[in-house]
């Protein structure tokens, strides 16, 4: 080659990229976490995640609390579906204590957890809509979430951070009002969900925005440790409710929807179908709700009745011991997982035979999904990065724990 000429290939040019801080307080992060994006115009070249902005050391706090006081901490993990976290934790402790609950408790738990799953999926799917610019579907669907919160309220008095249930069952039975409200919910939710689907599911702009956006292959998803709707969207039919049934989930007949490409649209559709399935489960559970007591009969775990506490010595002692957290758990090491709103929510509990856990680890699905985020958005546009994040349902409370 003649030395007078220099051939410049595009890849030889020393290209400069922009660094864009997506977060920690960006409207689309729906919480506090940061992405440092390397951008080529609108295109995402690379991304680096920063987490820990709302780390509250729940695992450490849990080591200093009696078992029954840890439930409120789990509320604040995935706050879109706190009942699942609560009940998941209670199931773990029951596993450690060796408590077997009756069918009524199981069915009640199933109903509450499925309501929570619907609430969680509603938020996620409608927020995908919001992040693509369609606010109206979100407002429609939030009325239904509001109704679910009313059911929680009727059940336990709280709405967002529910602290629902107790170790060994529920603090109170379903009141007639709760049953009535759940029946009403089943009726009105079908209509609302159909309306929501009509707005987005076959909307050309929405489909263009979401199909082939933020895809992940089944293989990559498994190697990251994906679970829940995000894994199912990639085509793997893994669901904790079926693979290791808890709470008598084996009594119910439901479909595990799977996607094919693992893209945003698949995740949307999987969640949408799961809501229908959850509704089916709630219907079945409510129809076949067995008779029984809402709490197990175990004086070491369950608070005695108030009249007995005031009149009987025995009851007073147990009441005192439970409230003060003076009851030691047996030595042991258990892992229990439930199908949370956005994946397998696991609790790894090590007990040294003391009043509080030696170690409690939360397996938070969001923490795992978020690791795959750079891979999923690389090469896409900024807009894709945003809706990929919302479709993965990364919730900062659970991510940082």
């Amino acid at each position: 080659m003649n030395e007078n000429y220099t051939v410049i290939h595009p890849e030889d040019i020393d290209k400069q990229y922009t660094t864009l801080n997506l977060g920690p307080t960006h409207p689309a992060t729906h919480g506090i976490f940061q992405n440092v994006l390397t951008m080529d115009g609108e295109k995402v070249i690379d991304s680096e995640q920063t987490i820990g902005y709302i780390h509250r050391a729940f695992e450490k706090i849990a080591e200093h609390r009696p078992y029954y006081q840890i439930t409120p901490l789990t509320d604040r993990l995935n706050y879109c579906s706190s009942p699942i976290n609560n009940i998941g934790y209670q199931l773990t402790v029951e596993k450690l204590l060796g408590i077997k609950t009756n069918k009524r408790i199981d069915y009640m738990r199933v109903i509450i957890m499925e309501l929570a799953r619907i609430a969680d999926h509603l938020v996620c799917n409608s927020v995908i809509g919001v992040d693509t610019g369609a606010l109206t579907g979100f407002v429609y669907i939030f009325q239904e979430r509001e109704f679910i919160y009313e059911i929680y309220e009727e059940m336990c008095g709280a709405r967002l951070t529910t602290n629902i249930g107790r170790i060994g069952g529920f603090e109170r039975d379903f009141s007639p009002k709760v049953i009535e409200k759940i029946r009403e919910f089943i009726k009105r939710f079908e209509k609302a969900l159909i309306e929501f689907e009509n707005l987005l599911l076959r909307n050309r702009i929405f489909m263009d925005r979401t199909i082939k956006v933020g895809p992940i292959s089944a293989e990559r998803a498994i190697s990251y440790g994906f679970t829940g709707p995000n894994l199912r969207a990639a085509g793997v039919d893994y669901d904790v409710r079926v693979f290791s049934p808890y709470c008598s989930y084996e009594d119910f007949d439901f479909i595990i929807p799977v996607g094919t490409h693992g893209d945003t649209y698949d995740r949307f559709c999987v969640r949408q179908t799961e809501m229908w399935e959850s509704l089916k489960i709630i219907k079945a559970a409510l129809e076949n709700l067995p008779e029984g007591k809402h709490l197990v009969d175990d004086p070491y775990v369950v608070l005695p009745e108030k009249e007995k506490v005031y009149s009987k010595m025995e009851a007073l002692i147990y009441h005192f011991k439970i409230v003060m957290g003076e009851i030691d758990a047996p030595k042991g090491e258990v892992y229990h997982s439930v199908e949370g709103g956005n994946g397998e929510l696991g609790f790894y509990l090590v007990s040294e035979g003391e009043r509080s856990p030696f170690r409690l680890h939360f397996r938070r699905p969001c923490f795992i999904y978020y690791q795959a985020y750079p891979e999923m958005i690389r090469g896409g546009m900024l807009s894709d990065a945003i809706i990929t994040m919302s479709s993965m349902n990364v919730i900062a409370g659970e991510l940082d724990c």
Partner: protein
Amino acid sequence: MLFLVYKLTLITVILLVSLGIAMYATLLERKFAGFLQDRYGPDRAGKWGLLQPLADGGKLFFKEEYMPNTADKFLYILGPCLTMLVALLTSAVIPWGPPLVIGGVEYTLQVANLNVGVLYVFAIASMGVWGIMIGGWASNNKYSLMGAIRASSQMISYELAMGLSIAALIMMMGSVSLNEIVAQQQGWHWNVIYQPIGFLIFFICALAETNRHPFDLPECETELIGGYHTEYSSMKLGFYLFAEYINMFVSSAVLATLYFGGYHFPFIGRLGLSPNVAAILGMVILFAKIIGFILLFMWIRWTLPRFRYDQLMRLGWKILLPLALLNLAVTGIFILLKG
């Protein structure tokens, strides 16, 4: 002297009306969104929230003036001013109604009867991007810059299709004066009937030009926070937001004028009204059409998701532009055949 007074009065009235309509369009938008989303919308300030726009305006005026210290001060202030100026300029050529006759003198309800009215509208509309571009650039913020880039490429792409759709209309009308175009649409001869595709293209482009949904990428709050006005506060932000509503009003007026017969309305000639009553009725009709279009803009905004940047470009260049060219060619053939 009389001429000057009449023109000044007209200019003042039109300015006030456009500002007033834009102000109340914000309330209408929020009320309409409330209606679509099963909620009330603003209802605290005055009856039915009628004082809400004033409260909003007042709030914006009294908010802290914030300017990033890395911003280019002159351009930073120029941005919103330019946007506002350009937004207000377009209404000068729109014929608001048939002439009024007072004391034997005919007063046309149009500030400037330019013989190149359509071209003027275009020239001014294409200036609209400058304010956004300058503001986004001067803010010295990456999100603002991205919004500005999106806005400029979007406007440039959609202006082409818009211009071509209008060219077909001008070929049919044989005039570029808005007054002439309206006059030719008397009775039922609305251009939308003869130019349905042209209208559709023009309407889509008008949405894009005003940065309304589904083309609101420049400010797209879920991605770019506030887009080009991320760094703006106080009335400078107010100008940007307000200009959007004025633009919406003006594009609705242009749409009504070019395609929906302006102040005409079928059978108005047969009612045997005196010229002045007819003029006022015509004006009312034009405003009804404008509000209809504004409502359509809003309905679209609260229904559809927005496009992605590349999809927007694809729609503009690969679908609308060829379609507009085709429309132009077909119109040409028809005119040729009609002789």
